[in-house]
């Protein structure tokens, strides 16, 4: 399919070091941070790793961390794609509330749970498309475009619930929030499935590469013939879908839709999870599984502070300290420091590092 050019023979390429990259991935600072946090939790609370089997499902603090971290982790999956395009989605917390409210009102109104879930997911998709349209067609900066729905979304959710907390007893919705599949809490199973599916979707198709290209250099992406607008629309719609899923889980967990508090400030936790996972806010290279790890790091931190007996307010201070640390590590200042250390190292090692 290519025009013959000069003498053609394959260039020498280093063999793909698949197993080495797996160990390298496990040695990433995020995994070390997660291990350290879990170890601290264990020191504070010796029963932390004790996991028991009761009534056909697993119980224990570790499972709690996974379960409690799931809504943010699901948001973070959608947020990762958005941030990789150099955007951000501030509306996901509000979209959670809208989706929860939609599902709750539908089941209390006598519709089937399946229909309610479908409607909630469709609402999330619609919210995401709205964000995407603002960002692409009207070229509004993502932070402003999604701020619109962040503010208006809670109002919408309240309109749907007519200002009250709508409680329900529908077993299907409750199962989504609190049930168990194969011994694991349903939300955790949903999270694992979503992580695997999304990772496959972006890495087995060209989507991942094209998203990174748009995030790194939107103008060059245009010149290379990439349909950036369509891509952005899909990415924001997906973030909306993830938010709806997280909203369903939170609503099922409390057996009701609280338009005021469901998902409140979770967009910030999701952004933090993505950044902790190593995706730069400047767009480009991203990793879905690492964002999930980032969400779990945040949850392990929350849990540790709770079980250590400190007041929850302390939580916010620790979180902000972590954010500052990460921003410093991502700054050009730190990059310069690292580069200087790289330059001191022999050049061979440098190449290996970058490969």
């Amino acid at each position, binding site marked *: 399919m290519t*025009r013959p050019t*000069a*003498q053609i023979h394959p260039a020498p390429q280093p063999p*793909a070091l698949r197993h080495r990259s797996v160990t390298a991935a496990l040695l990433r600072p995020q995994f070390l941070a997660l291990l350290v946090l879990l170890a601290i939790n264990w020191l504070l609370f010796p029963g932390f790793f004790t996991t028991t089997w009761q009534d056909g499902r697993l119980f224990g603090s570790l499972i709690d961390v996974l379960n409690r971290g799931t809504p943010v982790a699901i948001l973070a999956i959608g947020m990762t794609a958005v941030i990789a395009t150099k955007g951000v989605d501030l509306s996901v917390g509000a979209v959670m509330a809208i989706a929860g409210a939609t599902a709750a009102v539908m089941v209390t109104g006598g519709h089937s749970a399946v229909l309610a879930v479908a409607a909630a997911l469709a609402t999330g998709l619609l919210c995401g498309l709205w964000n995407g349209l603002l960002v692409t067609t009207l070229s509004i900066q993502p932070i402003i475009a999604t701020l619109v729905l962040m503010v208006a979304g809670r109002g919408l959710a309240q309109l749907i619930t007519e200002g009250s907390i709508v409680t329900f007893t529908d077993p299907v919705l409750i199962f989504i929030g609190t049930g168990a599949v194969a011994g694991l809490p349903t939300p955790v199973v949903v999270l694992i499935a979503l992580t695997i599916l999304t990772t496959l979707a972006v890495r087995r198709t*060209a989507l991942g590469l094209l998203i990174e290209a748009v995030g790194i250099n939107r103008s060059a992406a245009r010149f290379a013939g990439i349909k950036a607008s369509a891509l952005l629309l899909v990415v924001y719609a997906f973030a909306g879908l993830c938010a709806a899923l997280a909203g369903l889980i939170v609503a099922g967990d409390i057996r009701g839709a609280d338009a005021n508090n469901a998902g409140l400030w979770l967009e910030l936790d999701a952004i933090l999870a993505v950044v902790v996972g190593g995706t730069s806010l400047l767009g480009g290279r991203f990793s879905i599984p690492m964002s999930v790890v980032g969400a779990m790091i945040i949850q392990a931190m929350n849990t540790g502070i709770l079980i250590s007996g400190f007041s929850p307010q302390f939580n916010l201070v620790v979180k902000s300290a972590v954010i500052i640390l990460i921003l410093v590590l991502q700054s050009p200042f730190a990059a310069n420091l690292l580069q200087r250390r790289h330059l001191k190292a022999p050049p061979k090692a440098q190449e290996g590092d970058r490969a």
Partner: protein
Amino acid sequence: MTAQDAEALLEARGIVKIFGQHRALDDVSFALRAGEVHALLGENGAGKSTLIKILTGAYRPDGGEVRLQGAPVSFRDPLHAQSHGIGTVYQEVNLLPNRSVAENLFLGHQPTRWGLVRRKEIEARARNILVTYGLDIDVREELSSFSVAVQQIVAIARAVELSGKVLVLDEPTASLDRNEVDRLFDVIRSLKARGLGIIFITHFLDQVFALADRVTILRNGRKIATHALTEVNTTDVVRMMLGKDVAFDHHLTGLAGATHGAPCVRFAGLGRKGSVAPFTLDVHEGEVVGVAGLLGSGRTEMARLMFGIDLADSGQITVDGKPATIRNPAQAVAAGFGFCPEDRKLDGIFGELSVRENIIIALQAKLGWFRALNREDQIDLAGRYADALDIRAANHDMPVKLLSGGNQQKVILARWLAIDPSFLILDEPTRGIDVGAHAEIVRTINRLREEGLGLFVISSELDEVVAYSNRVVVMRDRQMVAELTGADVAPDRIVQAIAGTPVLPVSAVAEVAP
């Protein structure tokens, strides 16, 4: 060093400025006399703005000295230079659009009493000053309510009030129409009569001849010459700017008689108001069409229309005899077009992506989201084109931003060859790359032509254009003014076509003005 100029008001002697490895200015001397308009000419990267920044204190020279009225000076910053009498007015008026004209004139040095601004006095003085510029306007109105020309004159008045010896005008006419330009020129002539020394930077040669007394030409960081404008004509000036010396060779490669295949693309009456006047051009298989013209003549705009980056408002495009719709680059790529943009870093390179990904990205975009090239195909494609173009990279998984400029350019070229294009646009493919890579790119262009590709190559280097073009189109004032074929594809003919007496006023530019 050139002979010292006894009458010099502001003088630069043997100025050297180095950025990293690059000598932006190399032993440049320049002398401005009181009461003259001195034009500074040169293509992009010639060193005009670096010289101006040194004269106005924005940069410090790495060698040489600046003298003001015979005494050596060293400016800390533009403000310091201003206090010594050197004022600058830029192309975009940088005043405060939402404040009054009077406030803008006196911003930062308002007459005050007990710490309060004396509004009435400001307004009276502003009115008196502007009357000397032939402006009788309400100085209490917001600056933005006036035309760009008036704003430009206010900016000049402010610079003259603050400094008063030397005035630097950096492309002041770029966004003005014919009448406004005339009005501005009257102002400049009256300032000249008051004894100011004026440095005038522009891309419009006719304006240089209309206004300036002397001209200094820079090229690649060196001063080529200073002449009184009575001594030279347009052709001489263009020749000096583009670096073609007096002895012209005729066609180097004998391309003039070369045959080419069937037409592969046809642009019929393609144009965009305020950007490029409609032009008609056929490009055949196995043919290189070179594009010559000064900066701002519409060369790049022409290429952007062809590739759907800017939307044409007239004309049709035919690809392989069939009409094609090209309203965005994705459609252009689908039609088999490729485009290596002028600004590699801004429009070409994905810095953090690997060499391999940078090479396959256009093909992947063409294939769509779901037909992903697998890793083996990617490695194979990247290896093949990296070899064919001799891209030197330690490996193809390293970020492309770590490569040299020449290798980055070859990566972008490889990206387009990978889609197996039928028509390739190259905008200044050899700008900013080293000599070795330069020659390789020229060889590659010739090879692609022999392989049957249609190419459209924009370049400021006439030797280069002549070395690979079957045909050369010449752009001036956003119009295609000549199409040179056969024996006419020669540097001296191109220079003449570029310099040719302007047939039309700058009406195309007038339409750009809001």
